[in-house]
């Protein structure tokens, strides 16, 4: 009896010491995390909540919040007008359509190209590896505004790109790359003399006030040019991430494979790609989030002619808040921003399921 009591006490003490140690550990952990957590809270979580709150009001973004009647709570009215039955619901769905084409075009291309580039510059036999790594990474560290300005010049009607094409194909009728709002899929079908009238069903059926035919336009030529720009600038970052992961794959794995008679392609297909799966998940996630938030390139490259054909959801947020001078709509801008957040969140979860990222450690 006495013995068991003392045992219990000892055990209790042990548990207590363990608990103390745990407490100390978590205290230390939180202390280390404090700066990051505070910054995250202050600049991410709080603004998110504030934006969420204003999306339920009718605040125009200008009336001082210190005024008693600066805004009223209007419930979900902004979301309803934005997404369901507003007179301009097509604005949002058009922006969403553009953004989706943009993401669908940019993310797979930049991921695949980044992987290929990373594998190439990782080869031991390759000369000037340092030079190529720097060259591919360079666009990523250049300001996106500067890169956009360069593209504006390169892709202008009389710019070097058109000059080059004309030199190769003298009969080429110069395209104004950045002022062309025809959809590329429409253009492609146009080659076979197919247009809206060839598909009366698509022409006459509307989804969110946009005809199905328009939904299937593909990105506009201008948007496609911006996609090229985006791929070119982000590819370097993704390549560096892949490069780091490649160098983590132990050489023995490849040696074993080659001893077993694997070809280079088989090694790439059955060793490199599977072992890079967690990195691929990461790169795709980054890519998705980045493409859904595309703003600055569009800010620079949008013009009178391309207005809606390059409108992205993130740009729409800006446009509602600051673009319309005689009718600023901060309420609608925040509702759009929150909707965009939810879309990215859902897209990431779906992507996680599809690419098996949830199993990745």
């Amino acid at each position, binding site marked *: 009896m006495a013995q068991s009591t003392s045992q219990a006490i000892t055990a209790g003490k042990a548990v207590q010491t363990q608990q103390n140690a745990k407490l100390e550990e978590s205290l230390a952990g939180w202390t280390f995390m404090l700066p990051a957590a505070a910054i995250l809270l202050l600049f991410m979580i709080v603004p998110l909540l504030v934006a969420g709150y204003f999306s339920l009001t009718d605040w125009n973004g200008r009336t001082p919040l210190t005024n008693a009647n600066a805004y009223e709570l209007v419930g979900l009215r902004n979301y309803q007008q934005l997404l369901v039955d507003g007179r*301009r619901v097509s604005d949002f769905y058009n922006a969403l359509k553009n953004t989706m084409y943009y993401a669908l075009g940019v993310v797979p291309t930049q991921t695949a190209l980044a992987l290929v580039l990373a594998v190439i510059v990782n080869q031991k036999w390759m000369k000037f590896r340092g030079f190529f790594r720097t060259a591919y990474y360079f666009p990523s560290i250049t300001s996106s505004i500067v890169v956009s300005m360069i593209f504006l010049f390169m892709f202008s009607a009389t710019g070097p790109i058109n000059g080059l094409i004309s030199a190769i194909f003298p009969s080429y009728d110069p395209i104004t790359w950045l002022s062309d709002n025809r959809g590329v899929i429409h253009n492609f079908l146009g080659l076979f003399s197919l247009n809206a009238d060839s598909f009366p069903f698509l022409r006459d059926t509307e989804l969110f006030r946009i005809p199905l035919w328009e939904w299937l336009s593909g990105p506009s030529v201008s948007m496609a040019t911006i996609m090229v720009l985006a791929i070119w600038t982000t590819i370097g970052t993704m390549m560096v991430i892949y490069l780091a992961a490649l160098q983590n794959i132990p050489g023995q794995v490849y040696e074993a494979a080659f001893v077993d008679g694997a070809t280079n392609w088989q090694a790439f297909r059955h060793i490199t790609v599977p072992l890079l799966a967690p990195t691929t998940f990461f790169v795709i996630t980054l890519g998705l989030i980045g493409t859904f938030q595309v703003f600055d390139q569009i800010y620079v490259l949008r013009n009178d002619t391309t207005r809606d054909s390059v409108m992205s959801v993130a740009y729409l947020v800006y446009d509602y808040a600051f673009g*319309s001078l*005689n009718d*600023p709509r901060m309420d609608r801008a925040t509702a759009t921003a929150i909707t965009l957040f939810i879309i990215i969140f859902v897209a990431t979860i779906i992507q996680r399921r599809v690419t098996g990222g949830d199993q990745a450690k």
Partner: protein
Amino acid sequence: MRNVRFVLVLAVLLVAVSIGVASAQDPVTLRVWSGASSPVENEFKEAQFAAFQEANPNIVLDVLISPDYGTQIQAAFAAGDYPEVFTVGQFDFPSYVDSGLLMPAGDRIVDADDIYPSLQSAFSDADGNAYCVPKDFSTLALYYNIDHFEAAGVEAPTADWTWDDMTAAAQAITDAGIVVNDIPVLGLSAAADRNRWMAFFWANGGRLFNDADEIVFDSEEAVASLDFYANFVTSGIGAVPADLGGAGWNGEAFGRGYAGMTVEGNWAIGYLNNDFPDLNWGVAELPTAPSGNKGTLTFTECWAVSSLSAEDPAVADAAWALVNFLTGPEQAAATGDQGFGPMPARASAADSWLTAQGDAGMPFVAGADYAWAPVFPIGYGDFTTAVDEGTVDVMTGAATAADAMAEAGEIAREIQAEG
């Protein structure tokens, strides 16, 4: 405990009193915000502030001239802590008044009769109360390339040109087959911009509301004006600037010689003189509409005093002293002498501007008499978006002017019905 509280209250009172005493003696500080423009214009503003500072040593100016002015001041408004004196563009004005950001002018504006009525009315509310004082303005007129006109054998535009004359001239210039830098010259550089074609809308009697307050945006005269403007592009005797050698705007397309004519404001004068000194060009008033009237658009900016200033008479007086100095006859004449672009908002200063600009300035000054500031009421954002999209659709041939304007008009009616 009670003692502590007493000491605290005492301390707060002391601080408050000392601040009060200090502010009674100290000079008034005014925060003055404005958007950055061309370097010349920014320097001119700085010089104006320095001159005021010298004449009023008891008023301290804390000046901010910012390239990102619009966003910056909107954040300041939202926070409820905004400058005492700032510039307001015509498009921002209705919502600034609606949000209670501006102090009504009352009878504080000096020599108010001298200011062009069309400008002052752009900065007055529906009941005619003035809020801020126009500083300068621009109007649209027709730039034409003298060499292209001669090559095509067309007489230079005059003040009694009609719409048909303009179309015929564009056709003749296009048909003349002039080529500049491998690019075929077209008659007109026509930006797909509501703030260009609505000059013709206004001239032809287009209005958003009629006298009975009904929406008449899609009236026959209004549709005819967009038809007239878009026709230049759809029939190939004109193009948007991007399709004229990839120009960034009308001024560039015209300056490079790719278009025989363009509709632009007086800001293009300095640009053409600096960037294209060899270009042989002239300016005429916009042609007379089928309605028999002339019309153009005006773009103007004013100096305003914030509603916050109204709370302290000393600040309000200082702020209005500054605004009256900046917009008064003397500075208006100085604005004219500078000749960097915008015209002074006072009729008395028109001559000084014309002297600086030469003949090219005449049509713009003439336009002040029949100009309209194309600002729509607050809450009509969806309508203006529809007009902008409609403009592009019509000019790319994706929609007819009648359909596009009917759609925009329908939206305006919906907005009006919602109140």
